[in-house]
Structure formats: C-alpha cells, structure tokens
C-alpha cells in the first residue's frame, strides 16, 4: 500500500501513436481526394480555415450489430410507457459510456470518425502535381512578381522598421565602451546612434502572365446540383491559381441567353433562369481578350461549365467562336455537367460536348470533360491542369 509520484515527463507513447494516427488521417485524405474535393463542408466553408469531414477510412472495423435493427435496453425518467418515442435516429442510443479502464474502442456504436481538415493543407495536397498548361513566355512582362526580403540593417530608416533587439545590443555595447568597463553593462540612455533599422530588398521575378476567363452557364436548366458541381470546380480552380501563380488575372462571366461579366461573389452565388445561348458568352470572352489581353502578351485560359443544353440554332455559332477562342488561347477547357446520378450512358448527342469533339478544328488545345457525379470533380481538375506539355515557366 503506497502512494508514489514519479517523473513522467519522458512518457510520450500516446503522443507518438497520435502522430501515427495523424499520418493515417493524411493518407486517408490523400486516398479519398475524389470525394473530399467536392464535399459540401469544404465548398461552402465560406472562408473557414478548417472543416470536419467524415472519414470512413479511419473506422476501426469489427463485427458488430446493425444498431438500427437491434433492440436496446435503456433507462427512463420513471414514467415511460410502451409507445413512447424516446429519441430520434441520429441521436444515437448506446449502452453506457466509456469510463474507466477497458480495451479502447469498445464504445463506438454508429459513430464515424470526423477528420478535421485544414483547407490550405488540403489545397496543397490537391495541387501537388497541377500546373497551368501550355504556359508560354510572352513578349510583355506586365505583372512582375515581387517578393520582399528583409536582409539588411542600416542606421537610418523608418521608425516602423526599427530593429529593437539590435538597438538594445548596440546601446549596451556603447554604454560599456563609454564606461570603459567600470560598470556592469547596462541598457539605457538610448541615443540616435544606437538605432538600427531593417531594410528590405525587392526581388523582381518576371513571369509569364496568365488570365483565366471563368465562364458559367446559369440558365434555367442548370439545377442546384449542376451549379454546385461547377461551383466546386471553380472553388478549387481559383484557389489553385491564386496559390501557384501570384500574377494571374481571373475574370468571371456568367451567361444564359446573354452573357455579362460579374464579380467573383456574384459568380458563385447568383442563380438565374432562361435559355442558353453559349455563343453569347464566347463572344464576350473574345471581346474581353481583344480589349484587355493581347495574346502576344498574355496566356489566356477560358474555362466553361454548362449542362450542354444549348439552343439548337446556336450550335453552329458556338463551335465557330470556340474555334476562334482556341486559336487565341493557350487552352480552352469545357466541362459538361450531367444530371445527378445518371452516368455516362445518358450522353445526348445534342449536347455541346459531343458537338465540340466532332466539329472543332483545333482539338489539341481543347479539353472537354463530362462530370456526372461529385467524385468526377477531382479527375476533371487533374485533366485540366495536369497536362504539363509545353510548360515553359514553372515556379
């Protein structure tokens, strides 16, 4: 019988195995990027830095009963009668709670593991191998990318850049010098000559310029699901471009029968109705290029998302303008979004994707994908940005 107290500070097994667990989480995320990329919690995260996503891959599988088909015994408040509803499914009933020492992992009922995912880390993971394709060195370096480096110390400068640590050191040194060692080194009586300032250098790096024209169909036939898909694709595209290239311009165009330029926020949130005239959007894109982005100076990437349900009479014009776009652009991406749940078999021949693949003249710089399910978003991203041919500048 005794009471002891030992030093446990070196005890870190739990922490080591927690690291192993985290590693599993990262692996699981990597393996399930396809479904995580289009997870609502992330796409609608609205600026949050991290979100919780259910991760089936981290469940500890055991033979267990289907708790929804099982009879459970529980305790009431004293007046329970047959027929009383005591809980709703989702508010999971379980037997007892985990207290005390017992083998870990026996408490779980219908629970699943939710991993906390940091969106920036996730983005880094997704973008690991993605690049802007067909990037070319253009004549004009309109947007130099600059990085600021504090790498010098001077005696003069702006007060805001005062290097306090160095100033104190200089002051102590000077005091010591002036006392000739008669006193202990001390800090005090700061004079102008003690001040030290950090100064910076600007590194100018000349990069190719790129502009992305994000085009989205907002016509009546674009259901919630379709808009969501387009939205999740652009969510990552915007993040990708802004993370990898700091001098990329992005313009947003939404269209139904007419096209107009909108702000990023409007682009992602607004819903409209009406028919679809794709050529209107291409026309606007071409006009923008003509006005602001001379192809001699700019790498231009139009991306268009639609359900492919174009006015029949407009198809001819759409193909012609698409060809024209392709000639002026580095890459033209087109994503066609199907109905939720219907997979490849429902590729109507009247849809734009098949028309494009049949009739476009310049197909080498055209990438068309079909997205039927949320899981297709990630492959689409990879297809658009995974092509590394002809990449000349790569940070």
């Amino acid at each position, binding site marked *: 019988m005794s009471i002891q107290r030992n030093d446990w500070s070196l005890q870190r097994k739990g922490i080591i195995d927690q690291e192993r667990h985290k590693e599993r989480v990262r692996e699981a995320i990597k393996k399930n990027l396809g479904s995580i990329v289009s997870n609502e919690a992330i796409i609608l995260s609205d600026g949050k830095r991290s979100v919780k996503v259910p991760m089936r891959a981290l469940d500890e599988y055991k033979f267990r009963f289907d708790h929804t088909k099982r009879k459970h015994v529980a305790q009431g408040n004293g007046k329970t009668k047959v027929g009383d509803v005591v809980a709703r499914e989702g508010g999971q009933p379980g*037997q007892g709670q985990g207290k005390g020492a017992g083998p870990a992992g026996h408490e779980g009922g219908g629970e699943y593991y939710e991993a906390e995912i940091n969106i920036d880390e996730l983005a880094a993971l997704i973008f690991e191998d993605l690049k802007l394709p067909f990037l070319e060195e253009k004549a004009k370096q309109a947007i130099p990318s600059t990085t600021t480096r504090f790498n010098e110390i001077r005696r003069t400068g702006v007060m805001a850049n005062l290097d306090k640590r160095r100033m104190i050191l200089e002051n102590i040194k000077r005091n010591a010098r002036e006392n000739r060692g008669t006193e202990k080194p001390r800090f005090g009586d700061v004079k102008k000559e003690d001040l030290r300032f950090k100064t910076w250098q600007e590194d100018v790096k000349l990069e190719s310029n790129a502009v992305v024209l994000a085009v989205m169909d907002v016509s009546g036939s674009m259901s919630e699901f379709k808009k969501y898909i387009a939205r999740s694709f652009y969510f990552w595209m915007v993040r990708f471009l802004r993370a990898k290239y700091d001098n990329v311009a992005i313009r947003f165009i939404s269209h139904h029968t007419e096209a107009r330029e909108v702000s990023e926020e409007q682009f992602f949130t607004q819903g409209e109705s009406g028919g679809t005239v794709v050529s209107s959007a291409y026309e606007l894109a071409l006009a923008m290029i003509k006005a602001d982005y001379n192809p001699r100076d700019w790498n231009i990437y139009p991306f268009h998302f639609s359900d492919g349900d174009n006015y029949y009479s407009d198809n001819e014009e759409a193909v012609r303008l698409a060809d024209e776009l392709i000639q002026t652009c580095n890459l033209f991406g087109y994503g066609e979004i199907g109905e939720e749940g219907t997979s490849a078999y429902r590729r109507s021949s009247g849809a734009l994707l098949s028309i494009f693949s049949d009739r476009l003249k310049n197909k080498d710089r055209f990438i068309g994908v079909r997205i039927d399910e949320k899981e297709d978003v990630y492959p689409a991203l990879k297809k658009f940005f995974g092509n590394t041919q002809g990449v000349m500048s790569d940070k």
Partner: protein
Amino acid sequence: MNDAEIKDLEAALERIWEIARGFGLDPYPTRFEIVPATVMYEIGSYALPGRYSHWTFGKAYHRMKTMYDYGLSKIYEVVINTNPSYGFLMETNSPLQNKLVMAHVLGHTDFFKNNIYFSRTNRRMVDSVSTHAARMTEYEFKYGRKTVERFLDAVLSIEEHIDPNFLVRRESRNPLPKLSPREGRYDDLLSANERPGASVTTDDEAAFPSSSTDRLPEKDLLFYIMRHSPALTDWQRDCVAMIHEEMEYFVPQMATKTMNEGWASFHHARIMRELDLPDKDFLEFSELHSGVVSPQKGSLNPYFIGYKIFEDIERRWDNPTLEEQRKFGRQPGGGRAKIFEVRELESDVSFLRNYLTEELCEELDLYVMELVDDEEWTVTEKRWEQVRDQLVANMTNFGFPYIVVADGDYNRNRELYLRHEYEGSELDGAYARKVIEHVHTLWGRTVHLETIVDEERKVLSFDGRTHEEQTSVTFDG
C-alpha cells in the same frame, strides 16, 4: 500537489485500507501513483501501460485528450489488474476526489483478486505487454512499420473473438505435451503446423487430441487462424499469439464491467461514509458520488445499474420476507455474506439474469426500445422479464456478435467458412464486409461469412478482389 497533501493522502489511504478490510474486502496490495492528466489519458487509452504501438491507440488518446481539454469528460480512475495492483491518481484532482478514487480502486482490486472469472488472469501482464511491445518493435524494424501496422489492422478487427474459456481448455489437455523447451507461449501449438502436410502420426499431433484444440465449430477465431492459416509467416503468427494473450487478459474485464463498477461504487460509498468527513467534504463527496452513479436517461450507466443491484441484494438478504425465509431458508442478516458470494461467482450476464428483479426494473424504469420507421426510437416493451432477458441477450459475448469458424477447408479448397450464430440481431453489413477483407489478409484464401440479412440466410464472400453475396444453402459445419 505538495508534500503536505501527499502526506494527507497517505494517511487517508491507511484509513481507507483499514475500513475496506473491516468491510471484508480482500484487495491485492495496491500502489497508487500520482500522475499528470496526459499520463492518465495515455494509460486509459492503452488500458495497460507499455503496450505495443498502433494508430488506434493514438486515436483513442487524441479523443480522450481533446474531450478533456474541452472539459467534456474526465477520467476519474484508472486501475491495473496485476499483483500488486496499480491505481492512478490525477495530479489535478482535489484531495477529496483522490480519496474517493482510492476507495473505488480498492473495490476493483478486491474484485480482480476474488472474482472467479479472473482466476486465470496473468497478474504480471504489464511485463508481458512490454515484452510484446519490444517484439513488435523488432518486427517493425525488420519488416517495416507499415507492414506490421497493416497486419495489426487485420488482427485487431477480430481481436474480441477469442474463447473466454481458452485457458481452461489449455489446462484440460492432459497430459500436457512435453516438448523441447522453447520460448514462445504458443510455439508448442504452432510447431504442428510448421510442417506442411504433417499427419496425425507426428508426436506433436498425438499430444493434441483433436477434441481439445481442433474442434469445430471454433469460437476462438484468432486461435484457429493462428494455428491453421495457410498464409501466415512466423512473425505474423507471433503477433496473433501476442494479441490473443492480451485479449485473454481483457476479456474477463469486458464480461464483468457492470458488476465490477457496481461493486467498486458500492464500496467507495460505504468507505467514504466511514471516513468522518467534515461537512464541506461530505457535500463534495455526495455530489461526486451522485455524478458517478447517476441514471442516464435513454441509455444505461453500468456504474449505476451495478450499484443498485448490489444494494438491492444486500437489502433482500438482510431482510428476507417470510416467504423467502420459509421457501429458501434465508436467515435475516445474510446480506453481506450474499454480496461477497455474488462478487465471487457471477459475471454480468448471470448477475443481471439472477438479480435484476421486477421491483428494480420498475424503480429504474428500464425499457426496451426499437427503431420504428427508420426514425423514431420507440419503447416497445416494459414487461420486466422481457426487459431483463433483452438486457442479458445484449450483454452476451460482451455485446459482440457470436462468430465461429465452421469449416477451415470449405469447398475442399482451404477456404475459411465463418458463421454468425444468429440470435435475433443482424450484423452491420458494411462493417462485416470490411472485416472479412481483413480476415482474408490473415487467411490468404477466400473467406465466407454466413449470417442473416433482412431475415434471410446469406453468405458473404470475399476472394481478395470482389465481394459476393449469395442466399445460403444451409451448411452444417
């Protein structure tokens, strides 16, 4: 915690020990250790200090620690069933909390020492698990951490499926085989299998009459796989053996949780009342105690149920009705003797079956609930016998489905045929499929699982690539 406080605790421990002995408790010598919260959670999540490494422990640790950091839960006591036993006291607990924990822990260590289901428990398990941990580390070094981790994932998926009477079975083999001395605990069992095609005539096999270790159906999946899997290598068999040994240690705890917690709570209450606490402390104690043994609406708190039943047994045997006196010859005042008999002989299943009475069911307002129309948990049964029987059924096999090996040479192709002994509750199909994938890793050939899906007998199979589900032609293993 300063030295004066430790002195005070030591004095209290001496008192508590005396009182406990006075009540008739007979615990193992118990060493208490004061630890910071992180260590408490660490030991809590591994269930024993020094066990092997695996990410699932890290996950449990992380969850416990997070809950603690957010103030959502608190572990009060962690106790290790060894001789001498260990109890852990949290540095940040108040002195009174720690006194209560000490009293509670002595209840546990008495239970560990005297309950029959622990009679074969390895009381030096802490040493064993650290040897296991060292061996696993060695395997990680030799075969790669990921390799070992993936393999353990597979073993852990069926770790609860051992035979609780495994040790009895081993001992009943008579005479014990005399083999050349070897190190591993299961080497004797494995050697028969190491020579492929070894026939019944070898010495080893003769020493193992098939009735004792090779009977079918076999409830001990781990043992069967360890002994007969065509796919396992030596280090893998050793890992299975180690996990098996650790589960032999844990299974009695799983099978007596309600009783054990009830017993400890029953006694901490008695002991604390004897301590002559000042009013302020007594108030704190009462609050704590009612927190531990509180009813949980819509669920069941094992501390509370166990506690109530022990109180009820003592009362009923102290004051038997005239009828009980006449019919069973029960003498008044036999309460204490009776509860000690119960703590020695029962497990949760028999404890509830024998001592959960109509009055208690009513007082505790126990009921059976079922999910109706996929959304509403509805009370479907209040008759006490049905409620009791359902509770007992749910605790059978400590709440795990009862799975047996029905055939290890199914289709004459060394495929493994498992059968779920259906007792009214269907399996979680998605989970079952994942588990047979794991079992396939262990067996190396097609694995089948016979069970009931939507009231129909089905066989789920996994051949390493694809899952199949067929309506079963009843198989008589």
